[in-house]
C-alpha cells in the first residue's frame, strides 16, 4: 500500500519501549491514513542505528522519530537523515541538529526527582550507591548528574555508581558485592529499569529489605510491587506511551503542513512523575489499560 510511513526508532531492545509500542498502536487507530512502525536496532550502537535509519529512508519513510543512541555526537548522521525526511527526536534530545522537534522528558529533571525521593525518605541523611547499565550512556550520565544536583546541600551523598554493561547477572552481583564492600550504605538507586528489581531481589535475599532505602527509576512490575509494599521508597517514571502517542500524531500533523503543535525551540517536555505508595495502584491500572489498547 502507498500510505506514508512514520517510524519510531528506539535505541535498543528493552521493555521500556513496550509502552511506546502501545502508544504507537493507539495513534495508529486514530491515523488510518498512515503506516506507523516501531523499530528496534539489533544492537544499541550508533553505527547500527544509523544504518537502520538510512535503510528506512531508502524504504521511503516520510518521518522518523528517534531515540538516538548517542545524540550529542551524532549531529552529522542525524542531519543527514533530517535532510532526507522529517526527523524528530525523543527520549534524549539533539538540539544542534536540524530535527523538527523533541518530545520527551528531561533526564536531568528525572534525576532531581530521584533526589527528592531520597531526601524525603532519609531526612537524616545517608550514603547512596547507584547501579546502572552503561555508565557512559547519556541518559545515565544525566540522571546521575540530576540526582547529584538535587542532593547538593543535603546530608545525602551519592558515593559511587557501578555499571554492569546490561548483564543482569552482573547487575545483581554488583548489589550483592556492594552490600559486602560497603556496609555503611543506607540507600541504593537503580538508574536503569532493570536495576531496581535486581536491587530489590538482592536485598530480599540478604534480608536487608526495608533497612536500606531503595530509589527506583521506571516501572518494572517488581519495582511497582516494591513501591506498593513500601520496600521501594518511590520510583521516577517517564511516559514513553505519551511520547509515542503524541509524537506520532505530531508527525502526522506536521506532514500535513500543520506546524501549530511545535513550540518555539521545538521542545515538548512530558514531565516525569514520582510514583509513591499512594499512586502506584492508579498508575499500574493505567499502564494495564494502555497496553490492553
Amino acid at each position, binding site marked *: 500500500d502507498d500510505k506514508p510511513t512514520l517510524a519510531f526508532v528506539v535505541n*535498543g*531492545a*528493552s*521493555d521500556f*519501549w*513496550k509502552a511506546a509500542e502501545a502508544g504507537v498502536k493507539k495513534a495508529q487507530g486514530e491515523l488510518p491514513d498512515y503506516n506507523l512502525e516501531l523499530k*528496534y536496532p539489533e*544492537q544499541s550502537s550508533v553505527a547500527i542505528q544509523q544504518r537502520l535509519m538510512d535503510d528506512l529512508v531508502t524504504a521511503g519513510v516520510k518521518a522518523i522519530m528517534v531515540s538516538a543512541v548517542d545524540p550529542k555526537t551524532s549531529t552529522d548522521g542525524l542531519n543527514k537523515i533530517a535532510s532526507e525526511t522529517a526527523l524528530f527526536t525523543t527520549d534524549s534530545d539533539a538540539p544542534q541538529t536540524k530535527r523538527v522537534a523533541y518530545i520527551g522528558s528531561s533526564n536531568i529533571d528525572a534525576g532531581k526527582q530521584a533526589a527528592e525521593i531520597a531526601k524525603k525518605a532519609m531526612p537524616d541523611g545517608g550514603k547512596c550507591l547507584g547501579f546502572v547499565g552503561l*555508565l*557512559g550512556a547519556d541518559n545515565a550520565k544525566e540522571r546521575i548528574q540530576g540526582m547529584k544536583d538535587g542532593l547538593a546541600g543535603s546530608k545525602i551523598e551519592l558515593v*559511587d555508581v*557501578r*555499571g*554492569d*554493561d*546490561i*548483564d*543482569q*547477572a*552482573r*547487575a*545483581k*552481583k*554488583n548489589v*550483592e*558485592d*556492594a*552490600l*559486602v*564492600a560497603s*556496609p555503611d550504605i543506607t540507600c541504593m538507586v537503580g538508574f536503569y529499569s*532493570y536495576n531496581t*528489581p*535486581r536491587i530489590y*531481589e538482592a536485598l530480599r*535475599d*540478604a534480608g536487608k529489605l526495608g533497612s536500606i532505602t531503595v530509589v527506583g527509576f521506571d516501572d*518494572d*512490575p*517488581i519495582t*511497582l*510491587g*516494591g513501591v*506498593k509494599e513500601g520496600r521501594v521508597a518511590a520510583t521516577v517514571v517517564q511516559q514513553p506511551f505519551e511520547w509515542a502517542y503524541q509524537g506520532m500524531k505530531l508527525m502526522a500533523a506536521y506532514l500535513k503542513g500543520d506546524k501549530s503543535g511545535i513550540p518555539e525551540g521545538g521542545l515538548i517536555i512530558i514531565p516525569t512523575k514520582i510514583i509513591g505508595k499512594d499512586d502506584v495502584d492508579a498508575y499500574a491500572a493505567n499502564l494495564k489499560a494502555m497496553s490492553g489498547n
Partner: protein
Amino acid sequence: MSKKDLGLLILILVVGAVVAIINPRFLLPINLANTSNLIGLFGILSIGQAFVIITGGIELSVGSVVALLGTLFIDFIAVRGLGWPIALPLILVLGGIIGLVHGWLITRLKLQPFVVTLCGLLIYRGVARFYTADGTAGFGFGQNFPELEFLTAGRSWGVPNSFIALIVIAIVMWVVLHRSVFGRYLYAIGKNEEAAKYSGIRTGRVVMAAYVICGVLTALSAIYFAMYTRSISPASHGQFYELYAIAAAVLGGFSLRGGEGSLVGVILGTVLLQELQNLVNLLGIPSSLNFAVMGGVILIGVLVDQQWGVFRARRLMLDASRKGAVAGE
C-alpha cells in the same frame, strides 16, 4: 591434582589473600556464599564447554542458548503456567537437542565446530528476541515457586545450592572424563580423530555425545541463571558467557587443539574468574576495567604457565648436563 592445577590453586589463594588483606570483608561468609553461587552458575556452563573443547571442538553458542532457554523457561512457568517439574526437564531436553543438532552438523555433515556454533550464537539469540518481541521475560511481582527457588537460589547450611549442584556435577563428570571409557575416547579423539576411527571407535557418536552433554549442562545453567536474575532481556542476557566458559577452560589448562585438560582445572579456572569479578567490586576498581582485569589475568596466567614449562624443561636439561659433566670428569 596435576602440577598445573596446583599452580592455579595457589594463584587463587594468593589473589584471595591479597584481596583479604586490603579488604577483610572479602572473607565474610556472605561474600563467599554470593561468589560461590556465581561459581556454581558459571562452573556448570564451563564444564559443558570443557567436554566440547576436549574433542578439539568449540561451542560458541552457549551465551545465546542461556538466553533462549532461560527465556523459554520463565515464559513456560511464569506466563504459560506450566509446572516447573515439567518445564525443567523439558528445557534440559531442549538443550540436549540443540547439542545433538550441533553434533550432527559437525560429525555427519562435516562442518567446522566454530562455524556451526557461531551460527547458533546468531540464530538462538535472534529467536529468543523474536519470541519475546524484544521485550523482557520475567516473573510478575510476588510470583513464587518456593521449591524451585530453594533448589536454584536457596542455601543449605549457608552454602548456595547452586554451588552444591556444581560439586555434584563436577564429581560425576570427573568420573566420566577421567575414569570412564567414554572419557578416554574423548581425549583420544581430541588428539587424533583419524586414529580413533581406525581403532573402530564410532567417533561421530562420541563427539555428538560431547555436544549433547554440553547442551544439557548449558540448559541447566540457563535455568540457574534465569532463577538468579529472575528476568531476562534476550537482547543482552548471557552475552559473552561463551567467552567466560572458554576462558575458564583455557585457564584450567585446556588446549583449544583438543585432547588436553582436566576437570579440576576448569573448576579452578571458573573460581579464578569469579574471584576477579568480585575483587573489582570489592576493591572499588572502576567497572569499566572489569573485562580488562579479566583479560590481563588470563593472559598472564597462560604466559606464566607456558614460560614455567619452558623454564622447567631448560632447568632439567641444565641439571642433566651438569651432572653429566661431573660424571665425565
